């Protein structure tokens, strides 16, 4: 009987450990999805897109693709941002530069982060950003307006059926997080 009891306890402990493992596995899923997408090539990153090496690629003057610039503010973000150009006609293989202007009409300094998204999905990895305000967070002083540059190129291998690409940015207010980080930095520096 006691043999049975200890067997039960051992079994139950193993199961409890399995549950604990699965809890960590939930967290592990976050990096695992990235690893999986990288391995299978289902998703790509900006760095990889740049690695497609613009130098090798010829400008394709026979082709004109329309690119639309769009922007929106996430909830609670009070900046006024607009693209210099709403639409451009571009040749794949050539680097273009444009900018977005952003103004902070509040009374305090704010930090924002832009997150890009490209439609259609098929065009995603062919839109190469060589310089972008979205690579870093942006700080704007109270009442200031700044022009934020963006340089990009369409890879000439862009599928032929794609003639219209939309590049859209969403701006997030990260003032709070950024200041927390700064505080942490200064605490560390002090030590």
């Amino acid at each position, binding site marked *: 009987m006691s043999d*049975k009891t200890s067997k039960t306890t051992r079994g139950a402990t193993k199961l409890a450990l399995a*549950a604990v493992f699965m809890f960590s*596995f939930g967290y592990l899923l976050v990096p695992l999805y990235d690893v999986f997408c990288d391995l299978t090539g289902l998703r790509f990153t900006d760095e990889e897109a740049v690695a497609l090496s613009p130098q090798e690629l010829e400008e394709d003057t026979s082709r004109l693709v329309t690119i639309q610039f769009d922007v929106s503010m996430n909830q609670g973000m009070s900046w006024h941002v607009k693209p210099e150009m709403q639409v451009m006609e571009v040749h794949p293989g050539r680097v273009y530069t444009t900018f977005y202007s952003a103004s902070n009409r509040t009374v305090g300094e704010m930090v924002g982060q832009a997150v890009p998204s490209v439609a259609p999905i098929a065009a995603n990895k062919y839109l190469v950003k060589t310089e972008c305000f979205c690579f870093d967070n942006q700080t704007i002083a109270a009442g200031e307006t700044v022009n934020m540059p963006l340089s990009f190129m369409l890879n000439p291998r862009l599928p032929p059926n794609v003639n219209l690409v939309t590049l859209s940015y969403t701006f997030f207010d990260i003032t709070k997080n950024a200041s927390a980080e700064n505080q942490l930095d200064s605490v560390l520096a002090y030590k």
Partner: protein
Amino acid sequence: MSTVAAGDHHDHPESPYSIKRWLFTTNHKDIGTLYLWFSFIMFLIGGVMALVIRTELFQPGLQFVDPQFFNSMTTMHAIMMIFGVVMPAFTGLANWLIPMMIGAPDMALPRMNNWSFWILPFAFAMMLSTLFMDGGGPAGGWTLYPPLTLQTGDALPFVILSMHFMGLSSIMGAINVVATVLNMRAPGMTLMKMPLFVWTWLITAYLLIAVMPVLAGGITMLLTDKYFGTSFFNAAGGGDPVMFQHIFWFFGHPEVYILILPSFGVVSSIIPTFARKPLFGYASMVYATGAIAFLSFIVWAHHMFTVGMPLAGELFFMFATMLIAVPTGVKVFNWIATMWRGSMTFETPMLFALGFIVMFSIGGFSGLMLALAPVDFQYHDTYFVVAHFHYVLVPGSIFAIIAAVYYWLPKWCGNMYSEGLGKTHFWLSTIFVNLTFFPMHFVGLAGMPRRIPDYALQFSDYNMMATIGAFGFGLSQLLFLVLVIKAIRSGNKATSQVWEDAEGLEWTLPSPAPYHSFSTPPAIK
């Protein structure tokens, strides 16, 4: 509650009216009873929430409740019904039945059993209390998608904490089931001799242990995103809200099988009894259950066809999902083959089991339609999805639970229930459940979105029907309550076997079943 079988040397249970008996009990039957009553109470509360939703949707326009409250009703209704009704009811059935079915005296871990039940009332009290907090209850849907869910007011940490408790309770329940099934079987009760209810529960328990912690992880990430500055799902900090959906549905799809597998076990017990033939294809039933459980881990993204997955992903999840229809089809085939040329009678448990087979299959078919990635772009987040999951869950899981109660009630309380009332309950439930949910297919296909308190005029008639059906269904369940109370109090005495051709160890015990089941292991033929 009952007299103890002659010759039983164990302690008598304390009086059923003593609170201490119920608080401290470690007896599997007492705990099973607690779970089942708890589930019924939650069923009434969740049902009232559903009726608030249907009342608002009776006519187009906003008339009874404000949209925020409406949304918190849809959210809470789902949480109540899934975590408070179906899961506890199955655990209650497991507690009552598994020891009796495998010839064991009790569950393997009786003290933990007590804990896993008593966590629940606190968890749900906390969940319900959020309705009175600043900013109202959770209103972003039971799927808790960020960023919407992160806009919940003061309620959020309480919602998450209470869901942690619910998860803890079901993990403990699951560990107990596995430990019982693996260690407490009577000599000779080999795995492949176990009744299918035990098999389906064993597999369900493994699913629970595997996925409830993943949900716990996901909602903890929500919590830290909101209060501790992490950015799991926050795009500004490099996270991705779609990541939450992947984590949630990695839990969520196995969860829907947690909500249905034990019903397969119930139906597989009832059909042979009333067809008076052994179950057709026992082994294939076991393997089909295992196959469904395995497949349930690789189909989750069929809930996310519209998030912008790569084509390869859409195709993989589409085909994997359609594959689940194969083992599910095997089950339905076996049930029908069991009845083929049987001498069938149609007592109430059989009626509910038959209703289950027919209406669960309807839900399975709409599931197959939703599994087609290209058309899901149209169906997603419409009432068609609502129709689908209500067909698999209400005339599916809930009917199976009701069937189980009718089938085993005489064994539990020693008295037969009133067959007339039972049949009335069945027919009213069946008519109203279809009146409620069938029209939702039509409005869904025509484009009525889910989780919105108002709708376009052309959907009015079907919505009116659905609301009438919902009230009819809700009221019919009060009949069930009356019937059960009557059977507990009085009624014809049940024999040990109760049903003419019932097979299984539980039917060798006297009715009502003695407080301690098999103090000496029974002989297995």
